[in-house]
């Protein structure tokens, strides 16, 4: 149990995908304007990451045992098609959930965070349960980053910022400061 707890905690804050590994930056810059959208995007993130973890475990255990050099191609195709299928199923079964997550699902498919999860899971040789916990932790970390960023951006919306700094440069500077704050967690891992 302690092991799983550490995987969760480490992937969520200590090695936060957004602030420490620079993964999933496109949606981070794109949809972190409002807390509401950030929350939905985060939920969709967790969902896709868990699906990926399961799919990658199946691929690694049953399909790719003899052909490790096909991993990259197999991962990306399987993840992309899986998300498409799930999207169709959700659309059919629960239109409300589809409206909440719908447009974000395809966006996440080619997000680097998803492929990175698959690669980390493979190189660290996680078991099924460890993989799923790692996926939930990483997803929670991405959501945390999105919500933090959205809250800051909402509260500085009316601030008078010099015209040159507006836009991506400002977001990157805020992200840098948040990243500094998250570095404080780095000490936690070595003491385990």
């Amino acid at each position, binding site marked *: 149990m302690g092991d799983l707890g550490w995987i969760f905690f480490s992937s969520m804050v200590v090695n936060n995908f957004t602030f420490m590994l620079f993964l999933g930056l496109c949606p981070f810059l794109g949809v972190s304007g409002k807390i509401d959208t950030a929350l939905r995007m985060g939920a969709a993130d967790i969902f896709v990451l868990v699906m990926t973890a399961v799919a990658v475990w199946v691929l690694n255990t049953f399909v790719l045992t003899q052909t490790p050099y096909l991993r990259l191609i197999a991962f990306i195709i399987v993840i992309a098609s899986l998300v498409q299928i799930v999207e169709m199923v959700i659309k059919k079964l629960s239109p409300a959930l589809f409206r909440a997550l719908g447009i974000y699902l395809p966006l996440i498919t080619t997000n680097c965070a998803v*492929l990175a999860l698959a690669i980390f899971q493979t190189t660290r040789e996680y078991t099924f349960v460890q993989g799923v916990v790692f996926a939930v932790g990483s997803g929670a970390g991405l959501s945390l980053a999105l919500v933090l960023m959205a809250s800051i951006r909402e509260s500085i919306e009316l601030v008078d910022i010099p015209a040159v700094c507006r836009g991506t*440069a400002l977001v990157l500077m805020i992200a840098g400061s948040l990243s500094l704050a998250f570095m404080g967690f780095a000490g936690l891992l070595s003491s385990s």
Partner: protein
Amino acid sequence: MNGMVSHAHMHGGGGPPTGRKAPPAREDLLKGFWRENPVLIQLLGLCPTLAVTNSVANSVVMGIATFFVLVGSSFLVSLVRRRVPNEVRIATYIVIIATFVTVAEMILQALVPVIYKQLGAFVALIVVNCIILGRQEAFAGKNPVGRSVLDAVGMGIGFMIMMLIMGSVREVLGSGTLLGVSLFGPRFEPWVIMVLPPGGFFTLAFVLLAVAWWKERTAKQAKAAEARDLDAAGRAA
């Protein structure tokens, strides 16, 4: 493809350049350097730009690997563009890109094992670098082989320039070295934060700030010159 940001910026380079004096071939090549620089102007491929630029050597290797994948994929995509049905084009592009990345991964592992280890997962993550898929969708899928390769070479060099700038700034400030050679002697106190993750965010933010400032300045100067011309014309008349 990789998020909303890239959707908004994927318009560039589809058709032949209009209203420019440079011949198309030169224009295809040169636009990636500055006017449509993939990182600075289109804001694509930010993950590797931030993640592996903590030293010049890493940045250069990553830049070359991305260049190789980009040019190779553009060549192949452009070659098969008439045979690929429209509905499965994205999937085809991704398979082609993933194949080239696998090749690049094996080459790096054989040639520069130390740097390959430092780059880690980010070599494999070239697959989802939005610059590459963006160029296939916006250019190589619609244009002949020669132009597509030129476009890819231009964009690849534009990306390498940015990687080099980021890598040099971060290595000089963060470790006081350039390509491993000490610049300031033993009394230099390195600004360690620059080689750590926050330094990546800050460096890119300042580079973007400098570009925004430069653009604003040139726009202002152009406006002032225009106003002067109008003034002079008014007085002459």
